[in-house]
C-alpha cells in the first residue's frame, strides 16, 4: 500500500491535489489539503494519486511505500 505525504514546508495550498483526488483529499478553510479519512492510497486510486503528485506545482505531495512493520517516524 502507498501513502500520501505532504511536505507542509513546501505546500502553498494551490489546491490541485484536492481537485485531482477528491476521494482522498478535501480543502481546509485556507485551501490546504486535508485527508478525508487517512493518507493511505487504495490501489484503485493509485493512478490518480500519481497524477496529483506529478502535478503539484510546489512538489509538496509525495507518494511513499508503507512497509509492513515499520513504525511511523517519531518526533
Amino acid at each position, binding site marked *: 500500500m502507498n501513502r500520501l505525504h*505532504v*511536505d*507542509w514546508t513546501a*505546500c502553498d495550498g494551490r489546491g490541485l491535489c484536492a481537485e485531482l483526488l477528491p476521494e482522498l483529499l478535501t480543502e*481546509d*478553510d*485556507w485551501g*490546504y489539503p486535508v485527508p478525508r479519512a487517512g493518507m493511505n492510497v487504495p490501489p484503485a486510486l493509485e493512478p490518480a494519486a500519481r497524477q496529483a503528485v506529478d502535478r503539484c506545482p510546489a512538489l509538496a505531495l509525495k507518494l*511513499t511505500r508503507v512497509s509492513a512493520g515499520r513504525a511511523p517516524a517519531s*518526533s
Partner: protein
Amino acid sequence: MTSAVEAPPGSRVQLRLLGGRNDGRLDSHLAQHGRLPVFDANQIVGLARDAGLTGRGGAGFPVWRKLSAVAATGRPPVVIANGAEGEPASGKDRALLAYAPNLVLDGLQLAAMGAQSAVLYAPAAAHRALGELIAARRGAGLDRVPVRLVAAPDAFVAGEETAAAAAAAGKAAVPGDKLVRITEAGPGGAPTLVQNVETLAHLALIARYGPGWFRTAGTPDEPGTFLATVSGAVAAPGVLEAGYGVTLGELIAAAGGATAPLSAVLVGGYHGGWVPAEAALPVSRAALTPYGGSPGAGVIVALPRSACGLLETARIAGYLAGQVAGQCGPCINGLPRLASTLTDLAHRRARPGLPAEVDRLARLVTGRGACRHPDGTARLIHSAMRAFEADVAAHLVGNCRAEEKR
C-alpha cells in the same frame, strides 16, 4: 533557580543530576564522579536500553533506538546535545547547563562515540561559560570528540529536533519535513542524532553507576529521575528532580507548597495538558495518559482557583500562535484562528457553537505540519476544554467561576 530541598523520607523527590556541588566546575565534577569509563558504541546502546532511558526533551522516545538507528547507517554521524529549551515554562535545561554541564558534556561524548564532531546547541547567553569548560575538558584530555557550540535562538520551535539539526548544519533553526528521518540523513546529509541535554546527563550517570542503579528511581515502566520545573502558585518556584511516579503533591510540596487553593495543574509544558490538582496524581506517562497528558519535559504549572483556566490557556495559545515558524499553511493560518476563537470564549464573547468551533479547529490543525507544533497546541486546548468544562459552560452564559473565587 534550583530550589533543592530536603526530601521527606520515602519521597520520590531525589537529586541525581543536581546532587553535587552544582558549581559547574570540572574539578568538582571529577571529584564527585571521576572520569568517564570507556565504552564502545554497542555497549552504549546496551546501557541505554537496559536502563530504559527515554528522551527528556518532551517526546519520551527510547534513547537506544535512536542511537542504534544512527549506528546502523554505518556513516559518521552528527551528534547534537539539544539545550535550546524554547519552552517558556521550562528552566531545567538552563539550570542543568549552569549547574552540571560536565554531565551533559560527558553524555555527549558517549553518544558521539565514533563521530567526528559533536555539537552543543544552547542559548547564546550560556556560550561563554560553556566554551571555557569545553576548552578546559579538551585540555585535560577528557573529550576525544571535539565539541562545537551552536547558538539556539530564543524561539519555541527552535528546540524541535529537526530545527536543532538545521541550526547545527548552518541553516535557519526551523523544523524540517520528516519524509526522510534525520537519523538516516539530516539537513547536512549525515545521519544526525539529537538528544536533549538532560538525556545525555542521565547517560553519563548510567555509564558510571549502571542501568540497575538508574532503575532504582522511577517506576519499572518509566525508570529514572527527571528534572521538573515547578511554577505558578507555589512558594518556591524552581527546578527540582524526582523519580517518575512522584506525585503532584510531592513536587508541589518540594517547591514550597501551594500559595493558594489550586484548580488545575498544567503538566508537560505548553504542548502538555491540564490535569486535576490532585495531590496523589503520579507524574508518569501511565497516570497522565487518561488526561491526554504526559510528563513531557517536566513542566508543572500550578493554577490557583482565582485564575481562569480558559484565560490562561488562551494566553498560552496566543503565544504559541505567535511562535509558528511560518512554513506550514495549516499552522500559519490555523493557530491564530484557534487562539482567537479560544480568546473569544475566554473573554465571554459567547456566540452559538463557540466550543464546537474550538474543537473543530484543534482537530483541523492536528497532524498537518512539519513538526508537532500544531498537534501540541491542539492537545493543550483539547485538555483545557475537558479540564475546564464547567468554566466553558459558565462563560457561555457570561459568568466566570474564577471571578467568583476572588
